[in-house]
């Protein structure tokens, strides 16, 4: 499917009810959500959290290295939203998720989901007035990258982790080498 067609298709999907299996999954997850137990200020609802997990996996999917879900990127984003973002920033993120929830994002096919995210990115670039202006897409992408490439799963699978290099040496880059993380 061409991208333009996909977006058009996606937009006609708006208003569809969320599927019964998805709802059931959400309920199950609410019970299972035990990470950071006892911490009161986590930000997202269970439904938003599931949606966020899928979004991060679309941005950084499992390839020859693990994807964002395995690196628990959504948990990181939830923590950062709670602890680091102002109310205004939190609201931008929440509204962005709500918008996708309203459009029943999770009921779309993978192709449709990808197309919608491309549309989000296009809008983000088009509507950006200042170079550092934040919007939902930028926050989501930035936090996904930071959460993944800053995680143990991400660092150890993608890079050559050397906490104590012990030397400083100019070398030639050869195929098969991994970037070093410190």
């Amino acid at each position: 499917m061409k991208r333009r067609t996909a977006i058009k298709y996606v937009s006609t999907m708006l208003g569809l009810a969320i599927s019964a299996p998805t709802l059931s999954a959400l309920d199950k997850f609410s019970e299972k959500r035990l990470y950071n137990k006892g911490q009161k200020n986590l930000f997202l609802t269970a439904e938003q959290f599931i949606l966020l997990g899928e979004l991060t996996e679309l941005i950084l999917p499992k390839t020859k290295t693990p994807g964002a879900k395995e690196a628990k990127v959504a948990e990181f984003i939830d923590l950062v939203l709670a602890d680091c973002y102002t109310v205004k920033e939190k609201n931008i993120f929440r509204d962005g998720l709500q918008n996708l929830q309203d459009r029943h994002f999770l009921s779309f096919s993978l192709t449709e989901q990808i197309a919608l995210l491309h549309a989000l990115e296009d809008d983000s670039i088009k509507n950006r007035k200042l170079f550092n202006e934040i919007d939902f897409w930028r926050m989501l992408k930035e936090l996904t990258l930071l959460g993944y490439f800053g995680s143990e799963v991400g660092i150890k699978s993608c890079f050559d982790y050397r906490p104590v290099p012990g030397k400083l040496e100019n070398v030639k880059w050869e195929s098969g080498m991994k970037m070093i993380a410190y």
Partner: protein
Amino acid sequence: MEILKNKSNRFDAIVIGSGMTGGFAAKELTEKGLKVLVVERGKEVKHIEDYDTAMKAPWEFPHKDKLTLRSAEERWANNRFNNMAKDDLEHFMTNDKENPYLEKRPFDWIRAYHTGGKSMHWGRQSYRWNKQDFEANAKEGIGIDWPIRYDDLAPWYTYVEKFVGISGQAENWDVLPDSHFQPPMPMNAPERYFKNKMMEKLGRKVTIGRIANLTKPEPQQLSLGRSSCQYRNKCARGCPFGGYYSSLSGALPAAFKTGNLTIIHDSIVQEIIYDDQTQKAKGVRIINSLTSEVMEYYAKIIFLNAGAMNTAAILLNSKSSRFPNGLGNDSDQVGRNVMDHQLGVGANATIEGFLDDYVIGSRPNALYIPRFRNWGSDKANNFSRGYGYQGGASRKGWSRGNGLTGFGAEFKDDLTQPGEWTIGFGGFGEILPDSSNRMYLDPVKKDKWGIPLIVFDAAFKDNDLAMRKDIMENAIEMLETAGFKQVVGYDRKEVHIGLGIHEMGTARMGLDPKSSVLNKFNQVHSCKNIFVTDGAAMTSASCVNPSLTYMALTARAADHAVKELKNKMI
């Protein structure tokens, strides 16, 4: 670190502050046989043992590179420096909310109240001043003349360098005198290209940064348990290898070895006690920051090394019938002539090619481009003095993904490969002394220990602003001349004086007691058993990083102090 309990409250010397210069004063005085008390206002940090984040992996910091709202609120000033108080450093940076200051005009005051102070977190760039730096005030009629010249300090530079350990390349340049060096760190491939282009096209000098990280430790460092830099580039968290110099890794352990050092923590010096009869300082009155208990300690000499701003504040708060405006403040110069270095202005670019070049190890160092403006035949038409640049080249990592369009499998796998090279330089500019740039004590408002709050009233002047513009324009020109792409200059408007964290000038040295606070040996003119050898003593600022000069002044003053004591002159 062993704390020796002195039974009495009498010592030969009291050193106020345990940071870059307080630590060095303690080392010098104890090694010369004096019983020394170091008074540190902050909490105790033990070398290695208390570097609790030093060996943590990136994923062990829950918020990674993000600043928490709590830190932003509590460390409101410290976080003006690139959101410094993140998960890895927050607990080492001063809680500004608990230790407030006032801004008549904005001042970016970065503080680390603990053993070793900011020497634990410093940038480690270490440069000698040149001959002109000591003579320019007199020649240009700016501020007052220095009471010393380069040759007075040269042997003390060497002395300090041999102890501290400075890595760098000898160049034999007048503008940047060589130190006693350990081997230089290497430049990477695009940096070598840049260095050659600058000399070829602009006749401009480039050298590798001169830095207080060990590359070939000498016996003086090895005997303190220090070893070579491991190229982790996490220095600010404290180095378990003692790879870089700090008061914690160097001076304080050396002082403890003598058996002559006592150090107390959580002890805020409220004032220096002046004795009208002897016309000398006789000790200090401290407030325990945890219990609010007040104590007095007495000594023959006092080294005041609290950091330029707190040093001046202590003098101003030490009032007596002889000194109603603050100890040693007959000239009304205490707290004036606040200086710093320009920061937050420069340019960045991307580099085409060199894609088969890579570096193993994370270099905690940069390139250095020494001052060229108003040097030799180069004359700037709208400002005096000059600036140096620090910066370098590196390959982009995964974070470049934030600036790229796209996402998904291919996007992700691309980000695990090195990106193109990027290069950038920021200027460090000399700020001129100006008596209207000042700090003083608020007449009413006090902190929770009843000590008056510091008020800052300083800002960049015309000369500083003209220089900033030139710093950006020349950075752009250099990068374009080298043939680099996407050259973008920047001049961060939110930067205030102070952000260079090279605060100085508030109790300047000079020949004339009418216009200065300290004499040529850093003694308070009117109370000669008080020595001030931190940034407060500086009569002008140069444009090079100042800590090496502070330490050289400290060692020289300590030598003089002990001679004067022996000769019963103080």
